[in-house]
């Protein structure tokens, strides 16, 4: 199976990856039906970043679910692997989704570049290039050269581009290079208005396209001509004004313009990327807390991150013939943006264009219905309904086991949090009424009713589960749980709510 290596850089990278994981869990697939194994690599020096930590936890739960249940069950139908998973002799228990940046913990930037070891002219140049102020992890103002990098690059791509250049000599890059096959693809997710993403994207891209010059790695040819997609997230949220903070909303646009100018010559202008996706939102919503990183940086999920995750799905839908490269140069590069039908402050499925709606509405609704059932009706149904009792049994023991209690339950809880965060954000994405009854679950969609129509409730869902389970054969109880709920929720939502199945 071909692979998609995703480099998710910085806090935005983690947040977009979080949305992508939710979409994949819901069963969203690229058009064309080609299967890919996803290998995410999160690049962020800020290991204490809450967005990174919860994305990594989410990925682990996803991976654990597919390891037990397989990927042929509708939900969780795309394999997600760590780099260690793809190495035949890799220690799969030890794997990680994060890139191990060296020498950033408790290290000031001037120590990282050995400023005191440099010659006088080089030191003078460094003083010029890295002049200015920033904050340390205690929130105190410091010179840029004195920044401790374990809270990230604090909106300073100039120091980020130096530190992230270690990527080309890393074990991770060597593993990717030696396992990269002809049909594999690469996608890079970064923001353009901060520090880590803006710095990391061109560095990683340059090292992949320039792989032929790197004698320390295998598989250089495939890597040099790899189909590469990239997402550049431009400003999409507002932050609180804090004069002491190095992060200022006013700088976002200036930084974006500067970076785009750089990309014009060094990224898009030289044909390094086959498919470039741009996304931004100028909707002025409720500002985020101004946290340069020392507060843990936990931002609520945002609709733009979901739309950004769709760029990955779109990239996988592009036929290989349209992603050709020659000597590290894309032959027919494409540039894409994302739009919605109405400039609404509260986005529901009705505001999405038809293609997007067909891709996500049914699948997300299915996962939302699965979560609702697990929260509200599972306890009463287990060991009572035939779908639970038929072999392999989904009995009390199964539901108290780690697979369900930890991985599935925790994932579904995180899915609910993700939806609630997007619903509470501005611009909001609130297509569901999560606390209401099932008929009110999908906003703008009422289930059909009539004299001979049964009410849409947990009873009906149990009956659909019983019908689906009748005579069905399952490899394991784990795959049965995931597969049954996918099929039953799909049937209820298509037959009663009129949601359409996505194009195959």
């Amino acid at each position, binding site marked *: 199976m071909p692979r998609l290596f995703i480099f998710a850089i910085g806090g935005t990278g983690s947040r977009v990856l979080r949305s992508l994981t939710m979409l994949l869990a819901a069963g969203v697939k690229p058009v064309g039906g080609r299967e890919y194994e996803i290998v995410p690599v999160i690049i962020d020096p800020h290991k204490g970043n809450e967005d990174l930590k919860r994305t990594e936890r989410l990925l682990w739960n996803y991976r654990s679910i597919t390891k037990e249940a397989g990927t042929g069950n509708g939900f969780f139908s795309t394999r997600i692997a760590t780099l260690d998973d793809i190495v035949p002799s890799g220690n799969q228990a030890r794997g990680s989704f994060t890139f191990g940046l060296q020498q950033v913990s408790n290290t000031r930037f001037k120590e990282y570049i050995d400023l005191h070891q440099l010659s006088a002219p080089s030191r003078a140049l460094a003083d010029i290039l890295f002049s200015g102020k920033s904050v340390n992890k205690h929130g105190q103002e410091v010179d840029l050269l004195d920044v401790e990098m374990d809270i990230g690059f604090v909106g300073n791509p100039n120091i980020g581009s130096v530190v992230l250049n270690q990527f080309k000599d890393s074990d991770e890059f060597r593993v990717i290079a030696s396992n990269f096959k002809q049909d594999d693809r690469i996608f890079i997710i970064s923001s353009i208005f901060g520090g880590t993403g803006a710095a990391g994207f061109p560095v990683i891209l340059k090292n992949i396209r320039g792989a032929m010059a790197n004698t320390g790695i295998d598989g250089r040819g495939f890597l040099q001509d790899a189909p590469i997609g990239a997402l550049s997230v431009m400003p999409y949220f507002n932050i609180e004004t804090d004069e002491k903070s190095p992060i200022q909303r006013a700088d976002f646009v200036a930084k974006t313009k500067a970076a785009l100018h750089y990309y014009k010559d060094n990224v898009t202008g030289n044909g390094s990327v086959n498919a470039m996706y741009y996304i931004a939102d100028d909707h002025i919503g409720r500002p985020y807390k101004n946290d340069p990183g020392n507060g843990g940086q936990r931002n609520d999920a945002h609709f733009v991150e979901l739309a950004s995750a769709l760029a990955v799905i779109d990239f996988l839908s592009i036929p290989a013939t349209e992603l050709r490269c020659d000597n590290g140069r894309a032959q027919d590069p494409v540039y894409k943006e994302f739009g919605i039908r109405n400039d609404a402050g509260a986005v529901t499925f009705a505001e999405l264009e038809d293609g997007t709606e067909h891709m996500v509405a049914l699948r997300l609704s299915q996962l939302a219905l699965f979560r609702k059932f697990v929260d509200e009706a599972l306890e009463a149904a287990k060991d*009572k309904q035939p779908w639970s009792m038929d072999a392999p049994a989904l009995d009390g023991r199964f539901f108290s086991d780690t697979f369900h209690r930890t991985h599935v339950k925790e994932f579904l809880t995180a899915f609910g949090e993700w939806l609630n965060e997007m619903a509470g954000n501005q611009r909001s994405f609130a297509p569901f009424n999560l606390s209401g009854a099932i008929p009110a679950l999908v906003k703008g969609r009422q289930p059909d009713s009539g004299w001979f129509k049964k009410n849409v409730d947990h009873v009906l869902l149990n009956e659909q589960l019983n019908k689906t389970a009748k005579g069905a054969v399952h490899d394991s109880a784990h795959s049965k749980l995931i597969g049954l709920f996918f099929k039953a929720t799909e049937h209820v939502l298509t037959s009663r709510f009129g949601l359409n199945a996505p194009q195959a």
Partner: protein
Amino acid sequence: MTDLFAALYEWFGLLPYSRDMGDHLRGWDILCESYTGTPWYVYMGWLMFAVTGLLYAIQYHIWDRSSFNKKHHWWLVALAVAGVNFLIAFTIPFNAIQSGDHCPDLYLTVPDCLGFGFSNALWGFILFVVITTLPFPRRLSTNCRQTTFWKP
């Protein structure tokens, strides 16, 4: 057939009602000459099968709801099976007593009717247990295929 049902209803000789009631149900005619009257045992036997089968079909295949498939629902239907069969079996000889529509030599009493009703109810219940314990046709039900007298 009469002998088969008679053996069942009379519990192979234990007889929960009088011998006279047994003769009446066998079809002892109103002229008290031969067993050419209505063969009640056969009628009641088939009716018991039909009633039990109908109530089984209603729960397992017609109504067939996930909200009506627990063991207490099974017991509720079993009670209905027993109740309906009791009523039928009690009413028919009771009406015969009331109207005098039987051989006048036979001494039929209300306790006989109760005994026959009880016997019919018990066989209906046993039949219901058997039908719902065997995997077929229970397995054809969507929502009650796991429902028996002891689970879920």
